[in-house]
């Protein structure tokens, strides 16, 4: 996005004076490489505000930010201010302000290793099932069980990569081959296996949701929790391992209460750090929905010293991978 400092790009407020905040440039991966080139309406120093529309496409959780004067001698021009870090607070930008390409507020890195780990498990499971089916099919058809096992394992491993049209064709060929030989049992077995496989896929994609979200989201939370644990975090609440943390509304009421998907703790240099992870619904442009942002801002406002991480829910056409902390998070927290 080109620099638009000083020009308010918000369609709702075209004439407001603007304040510059940083945007992550392409390739900028360090929190120190913050360069001001997004415009937002200016606020008085010290002012906190609610959500501000950014270019009608994204929202800035301004509640989480303090508007402070420029540091040093460079005073902001009249009517302008710079949103920057204040002591103990961190600029909160969703996915480096690039939620299309990134998937978390820190956005340092996506996480191929997490998916690798779960993929290894998934592939292993599919190979196991495929091998069993292959051996069974070999018994029916009378060819080598080893061959059946090998083909089944390969089929299980690469199954999801096979287009459904090719899958149907191969299944039809297999059934046809058995029928041609007059091996009706085998044909029935192959047909039943195909129907069972397709049915289970269809069933799993239509599992009912609930107040805790659908099965995909629950699995995603469990995976996130498992990943955090490998990095030394202790899951205190949620993540499929315990009851979710309840944060009451203002004054301790039920109104405005928030349930956190995962609350994790880690001892960093003798201090227990807390991380809260929310899997969020996103808009078509990849930004979290206003409701999700509102919940995130409530959490952040309640615990200004803690970290809040937003991860897009699985199944929204976005990579639902959490960030790879690389220990950088711990450094940031210190």
């Amino acid at each position, binding site marked *: 996005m080109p620099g638009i400092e000083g020009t308010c790009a918000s369609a709702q407020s075209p004439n407001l004076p603007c304040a510059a905040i940083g945007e992550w440039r392409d390739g900028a991966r360090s929190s120190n490489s913050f360069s001001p080139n997004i415009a937002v309406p200016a606020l008085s120093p010290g002012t906190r505000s609610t959500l501000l529309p950014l270019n009608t496409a994204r929202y800035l959780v301004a509640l989480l930010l303090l508007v402070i004067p420029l540091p040093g001698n460079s005073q902001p021009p009249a009517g302008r201010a710079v949103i920057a870090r204040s002591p103990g607070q961190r600029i909160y930008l969703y996915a480096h302000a690039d939620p299309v390409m990134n998937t978390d507020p820190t956005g340092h890195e996506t996480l191929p290793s997490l998916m690798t780990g779960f993929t290894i*498990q998934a592939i292993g499971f599919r190979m196991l099932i495929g091998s069993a089916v292959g051996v069974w099919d070999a018994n029916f058809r009378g060819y080598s069980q080893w061959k059946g096992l090998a083909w089944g394992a390969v089929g299980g491993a690469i199954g999801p990569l096979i287009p459904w049209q090719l899958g149907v064709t191969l299944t039809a060929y297999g059934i046809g081959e058995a029928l041609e030989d007059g091996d009706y049992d085998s044909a029935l077995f192959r047909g039943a296996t195909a129907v069972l496989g397709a049915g289970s896929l269809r069933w799993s994609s239509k599992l009912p949701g*609930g107040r805790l979200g659908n099965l995909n989201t629950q699995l995603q939370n469990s995976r996130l929790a498992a990943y955090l644990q490998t990095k030394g975090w202790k899951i205190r609440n949620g993540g499929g391992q315990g009851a979710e943390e309840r*944060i009451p509304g203002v*004054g*301790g009421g039920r109104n405005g209460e928030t349930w956190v998907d995962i609350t994790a703790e880690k001892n960093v240099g003798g201090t227990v750090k807390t991380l809260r992870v929310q899997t969020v619904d996103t808009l078509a442009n990849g930004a979290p929905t206003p409701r999700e942002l509102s919940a995130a801002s409530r959490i952040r406002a309640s*615990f200004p*010293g803690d970290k809040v991480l937003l991860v897009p829910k699985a199944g929204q056409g976005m990579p639902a991978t959490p960030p790879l902390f690389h220990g950088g998070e711990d450094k940031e927290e210190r």
Partner: protein
Amino acid sequence: MSRPRVVQFYATKSDLEPGLRAIDSAQRLTLAEDRVYENSNVPTLRSLAEIPDLGKVQGRRSSRFLVLRESERVNPARVVQTGKKSKVPRGVATALALIGICPPGGKVTFEIRQSDHPSSIVFAAGGLANPQLLIAGEIATMHETAASRELHGLFCKELLRGFTKVKSFDVGPEAMVLLKSGGRLTIDAKARDILDLMAD
């Protein structure tokens, strides 16, 4: 799947003691603290009266305990961590850890998970972090099993007897005095005061 049952309360030691005694006499229990252990030998408590520093909170929040019936065993979960200085590429280390294999430079710890104990509940007593700051306790469960619901119900019934409902919290008599005298009642010592319980 419905929302977990979480009942949060504010209570001092003297608010808690009668209820804890009543629960101990009604049901023999096993408790294990919810923290990270170096090995699978998890020390357990045999009654609520054995909870150390009852009514006091040392950190930001109250210590939490997995509560089971006496006859049930605590099964700690094995957790593999990659370690900070892994000797293999991080991606490989993470992948290995996720499938339960300890990578070079990694370590194995043990944790208590409520998900592994379908008949359990989680209990945090809460208490005073300082004379003017009372941290919330909670009775919670993620399970819908009859055993877990029954235990949860027992705790709620006996422990919160005589408590007053204020907003979404149950407040013990002495805690109520603290609330009315201007003390802070909050869920976390580091939470902002917007979360403090306010009297109606």
